[in-house]
């Protein structure tokens, strides 16, 4: 059923464009020829992933059709529905910030209740079957639109996925405000197409696309019945939960993590699960009534109105509703005439006055999109996202900050450092002695948490005044890969501790850190957090990790950054950006070289610990 309705505007066509681009831009980096992916799982995942998202174009477009599709689709044959509804979660590729790029809202597939159970049912979405299109997503344009196999650079046994999240804050660790684009337009006018074209042409690595569809109000039983009879007006401003929308968009603009509701168009209520989204360099917000609320208008940096001819919009709706959902012509027309058209005239068309740019003909209008992209680029450049070099060159010759807690420099610690710094130390010894040092660092870090005085009874019959830790809720967060080496020590010291992980890698092109992966304990905001990284040079990765924690609402004073070795420069940067974060390290080195290694340093701690040093044969 997918073939006949595939719209020309999204899906495979754009994808191959991106593929080409990546091929040409990234290939020079590759020092060894790209091999076929050895891992079957990855390649399978990538195939099905691209096909699911590409085939998404075949499912319907706009939401207002949900209302009218009610009855018609109840008659739909079940197997067909199953194909659309059940999306194997394994097929989605993790795009690095911890959420999956699966569509947020089960858009327009009525007739059957989607429960979380059924989502996990064994029904498979085969590559040829259609899936819903992405409505709301935090997108890394490269990783999600291109076949992942093409984003991999292999060099010296190192695999780099060119798709992390670059810094979204300035060198003082403060949030750089993202650029928010609002896209408004009538139903089936091609807003999403325009949004996607903008994302593709921007080639900004981190974009969040937020759809207004997620913010439909929960319907009462009566309204639900109306909806089934095509008599509930989904195109009216009252159908949206504007307050929640403003809250979410404001938080996104502050770069914070938000929970976006997932609206179930079958039950007309929100699902218990929500979708986690993150602030980004560029946020695109699209919806039929995107410009309706004055509060939202204030949040938008650029307002784009997609003005597609009414005939074309009706034609698209008819085609979609009739051929895809088996609805009859009169029903679709009735809904269009009684609700969609009047709503457009009353609420949508007037908001065109707020628009900065009006795009006629929607996604086909290349000139308009080019203009938009150029403007966004200028704006982004003004905000400045260059980080690492700024960090290296500031804060010279200043006294060390108060938030730095250096372990007492005992002979023992110096002796351990001698072992792990020596280049000829064998891996066996390196691991053993660094573990000992890590243990000391962790013990010391724990002593910096608040304690309260308590009195306990002893078996000797006397009372004993001692101390207990103020809060039992402690969790460790390691910055992969080197920070992982510290996990064992913290588990040895704290029983049943929860461990979060953050993967940050340096982009070898730009020298900037990029965020790839994130898994944190639920409710991390209630925990005291020990953030672990083996070495801190410029502090760029640590700052990104700290920024992530802050974005998850962890109070700054509840974080301890523990590290074996830090460069003075990194300490300064972190302390300046996050003065309340306690910094714990066992040694402080004066310099960082041009490869961002600490001098005299340890070398690449992760490589030495895990035994992945580049051997001389490959250099």
């Amino acid at each position, binding site marked *: 059923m997918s073939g006949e309705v595939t719209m020309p505007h999204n899906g495979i066509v754009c994808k191959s464009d991106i593929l080409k681009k990546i091929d040409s831009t990234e290939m020079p980096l590759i020092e060894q020829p790209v091999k076929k992916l050895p891992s079957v799982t990855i390649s399978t995942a990538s195939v099905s992933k691209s096909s699911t998202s590409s085939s998404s174009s075949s499912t319907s477009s706009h939401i207002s059709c949900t209302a009218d599709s009610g009855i018609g689709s109840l008659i739909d044959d079940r197997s067909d529905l199953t194909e659309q509804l059940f999306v194997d979660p394994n097929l989605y590729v993790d795009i690095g910030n911890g959420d999956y790029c699966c569509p947020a809202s089960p858009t327009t597939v009525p007739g059957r209740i989607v429960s979380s159970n059924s989502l996990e049912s064994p029904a498979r979405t085969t590559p040829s079957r259609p899936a819903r299109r992405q409505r709301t997503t935090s997108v890394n344009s490269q990783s999600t639109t291109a076949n992942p196999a093409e984003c991999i650079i292999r060099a010296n046994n190192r695999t780099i996925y060119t798709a992390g999240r670059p810094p979204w804050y300035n060198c003082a660790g403060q949030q750089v405000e993202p650029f928010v684009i609002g896209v408004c337009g009538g139903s089936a006018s091609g807003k999403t197409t325009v949004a996607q074209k903008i994302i593709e042409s921007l080639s900004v690595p981190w974009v969040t696309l937020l759809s207004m569809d997620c913010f439909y109000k929960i319907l009462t039983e009566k309204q639900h019945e109306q909806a089934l009879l095509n008599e509930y007006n989904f195109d009216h401003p009252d159908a949206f939960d504007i307050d929640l929308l403003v809250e979410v968009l404001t938080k996104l603009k502050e770069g914070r993590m938000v929970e976006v509701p997932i609206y179930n168009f079958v039950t007309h209520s929100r699902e218990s699960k929500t979708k986690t989204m993150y602030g980004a360099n560029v946020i695109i917000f699209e919806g039929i009534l995107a410009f309706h609320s004055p509060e939202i208008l204030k949040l938008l940096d650029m307002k784009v109105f997609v003005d597609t001819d009414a005939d074309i919009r009706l034609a698209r709706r008819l085609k979609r509703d009739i051929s895809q959902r088996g609805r009859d012509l009169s029903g679709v027309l009735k809904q269009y005439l009684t609700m969609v058209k009047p709503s457009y005239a009353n609420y949508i068309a007037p908001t065109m006055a707020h628009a900065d740019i009006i795009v006629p003909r929607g996604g086909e209008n290349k000139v308009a999109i080019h203009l938009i992209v150029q403007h966004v680029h200028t704006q982004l450049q003004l905000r400045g996202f260059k980080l690492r070099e700024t960090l290296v060159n500031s804060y010279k010759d200043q006294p060390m900050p108060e938030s730095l807690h250096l372990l*007492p420099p*005992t*002979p*023992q610690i*110096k*002796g351990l*450092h*001698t072992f792990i*710094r*020596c*280049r*000829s130390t064998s891996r066996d010894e390196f691991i*053993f002695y660094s573990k*000992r040092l890590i*243990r*000391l660092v962790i*013990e*010391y870090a*724990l*002593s910096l*948490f608040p*304690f309260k005085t*308590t*009195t*306990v*009874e*002893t*078996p*000797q*019959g*006397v*009372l*004993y*005044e*001692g*101390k*207990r*830790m103020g809060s039992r809720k402690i969790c460790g967060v390691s910055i992969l890969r080197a920070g992982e080496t510290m996990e064992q020590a913290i588990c040895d*010291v704290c*029983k049943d501790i929860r461990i979060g992980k953050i993967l940050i890698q340096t982009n070898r092109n730009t020298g900037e850190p990029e965020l790839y992966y994130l898994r944190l304990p639920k409710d991390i905001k209630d925990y005291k957090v020990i953030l672990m990284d083996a070495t801190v040079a410029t502090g760029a990765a640590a700052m990104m990790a700290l920024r992530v924690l802050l974005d998850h609402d962890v109070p700054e004073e509840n974080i301890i950054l523990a590290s074996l070795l830090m460069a003075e420069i990194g300490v300064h940067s972190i302390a300046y950006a996050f003065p309340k974060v306690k910094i714990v390290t066992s040694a402080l080195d004066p310099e960082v*070289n041009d490869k961002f*290694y*600490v*001098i*005299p*340093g*340890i*070398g*690449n701690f992760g490589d*030495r610990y895990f035994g992945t040093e580049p051997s001389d044969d490959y250099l």
Partner: protein
Amino acid sequence: MADSTIITTENHVESSDSNGETHSGSITSVSNTSAVMIASLKAPEILEEYGPNLKLLDCNSQVAELLTIIRDKNTTRSDFKFYADRLIRLVIEESLNQLPYSDCRVETPTGATYDGLKYQAGNCGVSIIRSGEAMEQGLRDCCRSIRIGKILVESDADTHEARVVYARFPDDIASRQVLLMYPIMSTGNTVLQAVNVLKEHGVPESCIILSNLFCTPIAAKTVVGAFPKLKILTSELHPVAPNHFGQKYFGTD
């Protein structure tokens, strides 16, 4: 083969320790009234009273918590062992600080030089059976292949006099630095005997480092008085020693 004997003798030792405690004047009143709180001594007082060779583990909040958990009678055995091991590890690490070292310069993988230091070879551990053995693992975790000798000190049930009944050391112990491990010191008698044995084997007093968790001021005075050159490292100086340590750690209470 000697397991049962060792355990019984050990019980003797411990009971004699606590007996010794009640005999000593200032503490008798304490044992009778259960609600009395006794504070432990702080580092500056110790330096003044016992000289520079008695060192106290830097008592940060974290260490204080460990001490509290070990002292608390409501602590489960599993927690007790877990936190005791943590404290032992810290005490052992700190004891190793007392070992002699020499300067050493190494080249780092980045090509720079690092001015470090190197510990001299030829150290060994000696544990006093039974509770001292609880600290062996902590030492092993820090020094993987270190030699460990053992001493069994038995107390006479009637006279409370401690005497050594078993001692096994590396042959060349006289030329080594010795880390003597014994977690609880109430009277110090056991340690006195152990040090005497070591001296009989030719180990100089100044080459012995005593690793200890809980020490009473009386014991500290006794040991420092008898062996002024012996280095002592403890985590707490408190008039009441947690004499249940060995039994709870090994689960024979």
